């Protein structure tokens, strides 16, 4: 019989900034079985959300995940707005779209950097993060925060982006897009990157559907599923189509995300061009949520779903968060089985862009 090793991959592991633990059963360097051990980040946020009132919850929900905090706030606010029957002003819808796309940009940059790092491609990691800093500067200039924007409110957004700042933002983003033009070919055409990622971690269209893959993982397998086509915020007024690749391997997931970065630049420009005038927030005094609802938005990692149940008081009865990584863990386990150890970090785990603090809350 061949020798079996069990490698506890994580929770503290250098290629992996988050404490996910995978118990990898190896034969030589081949993974026979992978079992995720969760709970290293579990805080009990859903319980806390029932103890605070629904306005305070926005601040709590933003701290669910530092990378896509705006998306969580957006999704939660949309849910509460639908429960109290509030229509947000047009300008707020467009501003939300801009920030949502900025969040997607910085998240995708981050993912690309971490992937490069896991592949041992240090200089690409550095270049991607250099470009990401431009996005972060824009975020800081428009919201005042870097990781946690605190810009989404129930009834609108906390602050406006004045038109001259908007113009400046677009100029900065053009700069970032030009830098991305230099980086993207390196990722997509570099021999070693392609060899390390193509034909690995394949999830076919059928498997992706069965395993419940969402976001870029599903789109890389040929499923045109993008929650933005539901038309929330200002997405209904903008022109875009979900980006789909057919191969379903790790390389296809890279391609999807790189194209989505360009799509985000484009969406921000469209939104800035069609930015309506007017208020950016409505007061919510004396309005209380009642009933239950399910809201979905497209996070950088895929479909984010909130189930909110209120009872007409200030405190909510139940807030259930289903994050995209939660849905992408079954496809991940599928990818890991049979993978080489060298490909575990780089190819399988990072290609779903995991966010463990989202999963465990």
């Amino acid at each position: 019989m061949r020798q079996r090793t069990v490698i506890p991959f994580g929770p503290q592991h250098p290629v992996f900034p988050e404490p996910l633990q995978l118990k990898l059963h190896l034969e030589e360097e081949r993974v026979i079985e992978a079992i995720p051990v969760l709970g290293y980040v579990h805080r009990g946020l859903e319980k806390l959300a029932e103890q605070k009132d629904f306005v305070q919850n926005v601040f709590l929900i933003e701290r669910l995940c530092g990378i896509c905090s705006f998306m969580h706030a957006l999704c939660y606010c949309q849910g509460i707005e639908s429960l109290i029957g509030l229509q947000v002003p047009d300008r707020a819808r467009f501003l939300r779209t801009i920030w949502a796309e900025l969040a997607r940009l910085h998240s995708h940059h981050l993912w690309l950097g971490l992937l490069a790092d896991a592949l041992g491609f240090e200089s690409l990691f550095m270049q991607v993060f250099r470009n990401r800093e431009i996005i972060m500067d824009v975020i800081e200039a428009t919201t005042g925060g870097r990781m946690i924007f605190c810009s989404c409110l129930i009834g609108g957004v906390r602050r406006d982006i004045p038109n001259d700042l908007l113009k400046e933002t677009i100029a900065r983003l053009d700069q970032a897009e030009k830098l991305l033009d230099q980086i993207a070919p390196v990722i997509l055409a570099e021999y070693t990157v392609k060899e390390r990622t193509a034909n690995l971690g394949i999830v076919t269209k059928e498997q992706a559907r069965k395993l419940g893959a969402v976001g870029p993982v599903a789109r890389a397998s040929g499923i045109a599923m993008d929650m933005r086509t539901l038309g929330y915020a200002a997405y209904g007024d903008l022109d875009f189509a979900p980006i789909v690749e057919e191969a379903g391997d790790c390389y296809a997931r890279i391609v999807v995300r790189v194209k989505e970065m360009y799509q985000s630049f484009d969406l921000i420009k469209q939104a800035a061009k069609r930015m309506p005038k007017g208020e950016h927030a409505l007061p919510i005094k004396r309005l209380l949520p009642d009933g239950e609802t399910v809201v979905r938005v497209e996070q950088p990692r895929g479909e984010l779903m909130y189930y909110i149940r209120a009872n007409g008081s200030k405190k909510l009865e139940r807030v259930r968060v289903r994050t995209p990584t939660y849905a992408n863990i079954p496809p991940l386990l599928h990818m890991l089985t049979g993978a080489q150890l060298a490909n575990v970090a780089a190819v399988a785990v990072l290609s779903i862009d995991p966010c463990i603090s989202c999963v465990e809350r």
Partner: protein
Amino acid sequence: MRELEAIEIGVDQLLGEAHLLAQDGWRLVTITCARSEDGCEVIYHFDKDLKLKHLRLQLALEQEVPSIMPIFFPAYLAENEAMNLYGLRVTGLNIDYGGRLFTTAEAPRHPMARPAGARGEE
């Protein structure tokens, strides 16, 4: 009060309904567990072409519910989580964390379950 358009089903109908949905190409979005007056409420959310369908299940205290993991594999995290946080009794799990998906022995056993004497509290 605005309610979710959910199909109310009984525990014995669950597997049959799930089977039909699976054949029809629906995707399991997630399973939500919530407290109700006398026990626990489980909502199964399904999606097909961006349309949602919900199955609602009212459970009495200590009532068991079959796992839908054999039909929808992605249920595995959600069911284990419900077992952990709500003390839901799920039977027939393929991957069973024994009600300890997120928490360890030092933490409250079923932290989201009803306070004082209700299901799952020890």
